[in-house]
């Protein structure tokens, strides 16, 4: 039943949307955004910036700290979820605020019959306490999550719990 529901409303982005790295959609209580990229990697990276834009202004964060992130997932959605959660973990444990995802590589790993996805990323940023912050992201959710290729680009959609 769930899969059927998820297919609803999967309409393609308008041309105006394609110029942006990410955009926010209407959601009463939480935050819903779409991020785009020429590659899946780029779309994931833009999703990370979109998530941090809920809490601060990523473009104002100085890229003085570097962190390496790894994540794995059974499918691309799970990979996206785990990648974003890893960034929330860095924020809560070290106060790390993201400026940008500098390098990111997504690949497949085979263990026996099972194929899963793995990600390695290098991110830059600074301590959040040095900047003006607003809002809070409590958790990533699978609610309305989309990861898909459309024409010549990738689009991901995420709802985060605020």
């Amino acid at each position, binding site marked *: *039943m*769930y899969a059927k529901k998820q297919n609803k409303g999967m309409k393609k982005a308008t041309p105006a949307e394609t110029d942006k790295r990410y955009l926010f*959609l209407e959601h009463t209580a939480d935050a819903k955004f779409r991020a785009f990229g020429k590659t899946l990697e780029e779309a994931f990276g833009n999703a990370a910036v979109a998530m941090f834009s809920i809490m601060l202004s990523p473009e104002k964060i100085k890229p003085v700290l570097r962190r390496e992130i790894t994540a794995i997932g059974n499918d691309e959605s799970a990979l996206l979820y785990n990648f974003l959660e890893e960034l929330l973990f860095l924020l809560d444990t070290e106060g790390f605020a993201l400026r940008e995802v500098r390098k990111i590589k997504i690949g497949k790993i085979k263990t026996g019959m099972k194929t899963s996805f793995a990600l390695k990323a290098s991110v830059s940023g600074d301590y959040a306490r040095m900047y003006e912050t607003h809002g*809070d992201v*409590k958790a990533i959710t699978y*609610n309305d999550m989309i990861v898909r290729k459309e024409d010549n680009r990738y689009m991901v959609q995420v709802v985060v719990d*605020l």
Partner: protein
Amino acid sequence: MSDGNKGNEERRYVHEDGMGIELERLGPNAWRIPRKDGMRVPAVIYASEKLIQKIKEDKTLIQAQNVTHLKGIQKSCYVMPDAHQGYGFPIGGVAAFDIDEGVISPGGVGYDINCSVRLLRTDLSFKDFNKKKTELIRVLFDNVPCGVGRGSRTKFSKDQITELLGGGAQWVVKQGFGKKEDCVKTEENGKMDADPNEVSQRAMQRGLDQVGTLGAGNHFLEIQKIGTVFENNAAKVFGIDDDEKITVMIHCGSRGLGHQVASDFIKLMEDEYGFKDLPDRELICAPVQSSLGQRYLKAMAAAANFGFANKQMITHHVRESFNKVFGETDISVMYDICHNIAKIEDHIIDGVKKKVCVHRKGATRSLGPGRKEVPEQYRDIGQPIIIPGSMGTASYVLAGTKTAEEVSFSSTAHGAGRVSSRSKALHNIRGEDVKRRLEAQGIEVKSASWKTIAEEAPEVYKDIDEVIRVSKELGIGIPIVRLLPIGVIKG
């Protein structure tokens, strides 16, 4: 009690909302989605005409309907007047499940486990307070860390956090940050029966530097004065009858630790049980009696203890701040209520007393007079219920009722409830304007950012007075006192 879920009400009319959900009107403030298809019980929505219109605009009704599909659900899924769309369960959703046949769902508790409200009374008068208002707000803002990425002022080791997860607010008081009496006036005495070992290392790490921090978003610290007193005797018993006195309200939860516990168990339950039989992936759940169900309850309780401990530590920082600015000030806890929690409780179902697992997600417990769970001092009146308004609007203290035990598994509303998205607010509202407007009303706002002020502007929330009126008319909470904001700190 003019309406409710009695089963034989006159059906005034039946109509369908935009999502094709059939809605029967049961009375001025009650509606029902009748049982059909996979629904095991009906869903009952407590809302006035005005509030139901807002509720229909998002996914609240379909989410309430989906909850009724879950195994072991009893009587009805109840939806409170301040409800809005949530994750799986609607915010403002109450559901009780048979503890042998039923389920426990992390989505029915929410990511912010034990998101809760504590009300402090002070012996400080409004007149004295006003002389140093700005100074106090500045000191509070410095003393209570808020916003994202700002850590605790008192650092605890991993071993200490483990003890805190078992001992809640009581443990914090034992470390010297508060009074024994603070816990007596807290739901569950500030400590639920938890197993810290069920909290993952990852969750633990996220909480390590967050004890005594407010967080951000809709969480706040508010200075108020006692406004209207509706019930003199009850207000006197609750110690909030003097309309010249200042109160302090703390609204926050279990921070990153609680969010991670929720995420961890959602994943574990998906792996173990899958979601293909559920109407919505986010209703992922486990049988209450399963190993995973029991583990979640123990982990949830540990996260709840973190939430209690967090507010206890903030209370300590509030006392420090008042003492610094005004000299020795007497500050005591009036009460502290949970509004994101699941509990095993006894309820009368079909005339028989039964143990059920009650989920309250964005709903407050409402226990009538005589209940042993209520502090002895308040027992004749009923449990105090604290319902915060939005920034700049009134908040309320209510008393729990026997009626709530009959019609809503002892629950009522938890706040004003959002009506407008944050992005829309940012687009239409300027934080500077909101601050100026509130200041003209004598309300001083201090926040880490203008954006937060815009996102949390009063107009993005439902009318709290209407929510309280409905609660009163239904008899699921009796208004005792209305509190007026005079200073607000937002993360």
